[in-house]
C-alpha cells in the first residue's frame, strides 16, 4: 500500500486553477521526485499535501488515513515532516532551539538527546554552531539545519521542497548525499526540485509536472534518458 496517495488533486488560487487534477503515489522506502519548471505547481502540491492550503478537491491519504482536511500541525505527529521551500528556519532562534522545535510534537527527553546527536553527527557544523542565531548561518548551513529540524521528529515521510535552491554545487551534493542516506536509513522521501538532473539521479520514481498537470512519469533513470525530458529540463 502506498504511504502517500494523492488522488485528483485540484487547487485554485482565486479564479486561477493552479493544480488541475493531479494523482500520484509514494510507496514506502522510495524516493519520489516531482520535477517541473517555475510555476508548474510543485510547491502548491506540497502545501496542499501539508494542509497549509485548504481550498482543494480530490483526496490525500497518508499511511492509510484520509488527511485531505487535516490540520497542518497534526501531520508531524502522524509521521510526515517537511523541509519547506526557502528553508524557513526560525532566524531569530539559535540552531539548537530550531532543532528543539523540530522535536516539538514528541515528548521523550532521552530520545531527544539521541536524535540531536544523530543530527550533529550528520552535519558536524551544526554542533559547532549550536548556540549561534540561525539567521547568521550561510545558505547551505541553513538548508542542513532545515533538513535536520525536519528529521528530529523521526518522520516516516520526508517532504523536501527545492532543497537545492540557492545553494553552491558543493552544498547541493552534500544535501543530496544526505537525502540518499536518510532514505537508506528507512525514511520515505518526496522531493520537489527544479534541479531535475540531480533529482532524477537519486529518484526511484519521478513525475513531470507542467502547468498544473502530470505529463510524464517513470523511474528516475527512464526520465533521465527520455528525449523530451532531456530537452525541456536537462539542457538538451
Amino acid at each position, binding site marked *: 500500500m502506498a504511504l502517500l496517495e494523492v488522488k485528483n488533486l485540484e487547487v485554485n488560487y482565486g479564479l486561477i486553477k493552479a493544480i488541475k487534477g493531479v494523482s500520484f503515489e509514494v510507496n514506502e522506502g522510495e524516493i519520489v521526485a516531482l520535477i517541473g519548471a517555475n510555476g508548474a505547481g510543485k510547491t502548491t502540491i506540497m502545501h496542499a499535501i*501539508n494542509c*497549509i492550503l485548504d481550498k482543494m478537491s480530490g483526496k490525500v491519504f497518508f499511511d492509510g488515513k484520509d488527511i485531505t482536511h487535516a*490540520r*497542518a*500541525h*497534526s*501531520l*508531524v*505527529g502522524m509521521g510526515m*515532516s*517537511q523541509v*519547506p521551500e*526557502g528553508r*524557513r*528556519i*526560525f*532566524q*531569530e*532562534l539559535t540552531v539548537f*532551539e530550531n532543532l*528543539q*522545535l*523540530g522535536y*516539538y*510534537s514528541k515528548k521523550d527527553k532521552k530520545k531527544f538527546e539521541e536524535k540531536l546527536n544523530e543530527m550533529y553527527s550528520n552535519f558536524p557544523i551544526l554542533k559547532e554552531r549550536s548556540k549561534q542565531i540561525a*539567521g547568521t548561518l550561510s545558505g547551505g548551513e541553513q538548508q542542513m539545519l532545515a533538513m535536520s*529540524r*525536519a528529521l528530529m*521528529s523521526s518522520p516516516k515521510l520526508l517532504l523536501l521542497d527545492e532543497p537545492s535552491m540557492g545553494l553552491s554545487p558543493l552544498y547541493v551534493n552534500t544535501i543530496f548525499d544526505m537525502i540518499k542516506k536518510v532514505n537508506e536509513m528507512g525514511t520515505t522521501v518526496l522531493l520537489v526540485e527544479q534541479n531535475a538532473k540531480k533529482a532524477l539521479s537519486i529518484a526511484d520514481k519521478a513525475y513531470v509536472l507542467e502547468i498544473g498537470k502530470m505529463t510524464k512519469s517513470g523511474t528516475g533513470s527512464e526520465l533521465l534518458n527520455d528525449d523530451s525530458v532531456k530537452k525541456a529540463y536537462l539542457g538538451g
Partner: protein
Amino acid sequence: MSTIIDGLSLGAIYALIALGYTMVYGIAKMLNFAHGDIIMVGAYALYSTLLLGQSPVVSVLAIIISIVACVVLGVVVERFAYRPLRGATPLAVLITAIGVSYMLQSIAQLIFKAKSRPVSFSIPGTTFGIHNSTILTLVVGTVVMVALTLFVNYTKTGRAMVAVSEDRAAAELMGINSNFIISLTFAIGSALAACAAIFYLMQIPLVNPTFGAMPGIKAFTAAVIGGIGSIPGAMIGGVLLGVVEKICLSIPAIAPYTTAIEFSCLIVILLVKPTGLLGRKRREKV
C-alpha cells in the same frame, strides 16, 4: 525620589498593558484596539464583586474574578471576532478591533450607566513616605514581567510562541498548533490587562465605560516606543512613559502639557528610530 517611584509604578501598569498589545501584535500580527476595553471590563468585574462586601476574602475573590473575566473575554473575542478574519486584509481586522472596542464600551454603558463609580481598592498607609499600593504595584508588576520573560524564553510553549511569531506556517510544520498559541497569547495579554486594571484602580479609584481608553492608548504608545512586537521593548516603553508622566506632573509649569509631552516622545522616538527602541526590522520573506 518619590516622583520616580510613582513613575516606575505607573510605568509598570503601562508596561503590563503594553505587553498585551505587543504580544498580540508579535504573534497574531494585528493591533488589538479592544485591549484597552478589556482593562475596563476587568475594572467593572472588580467593582461588581466588591459590592458583595468589604472583607479580605471578597477582595481576593474580586481579583480572581477580574482576571478570569478578562481571560475569558480575551479568548472569546479572538475566537469569534478575529479568528474568522485570519488571512483577511489588516485593515478589516483593525476595523473589527475598533468595533469590538465600541461594543464593549456600549455594553458597559448599558449595564453600569455612564456615570463614574467609586471603587475603593487600595492598601492604606505608607512606607518611607511612599504609598503601599505604589510599592505593591511595582513589586507585583516586576515579578509578573520577569515570570513572563522566563516563560517565553525558557519553556517549550514560550518557544512555540516565538516560532509562531516569526513564521506561522513553518511553526505549523513543526507540529505547533498556531491557533492554540494565538488563543494563549490573548489569554496572557488579557490576564496582564486585568492586573493593570486592579493597579490602576488603586491610583484612580473611579470606573466608567471609557476607563480603559486612556491607559490603553498610552500603553499602545509605550509598546510602539519600545518597538511593537518586542516584549522587553514594551516593558521599557511602559516604564519610560510612566516616569515621564509623573515627572511632568510634578513640575507645576509643565503639568498641564503632560499628555502632549508623552505623545511627543513617541513622535521623537519614531523619527530617530522608526522601529522603536528595541524593534527590529524583519526581513521580508519572498
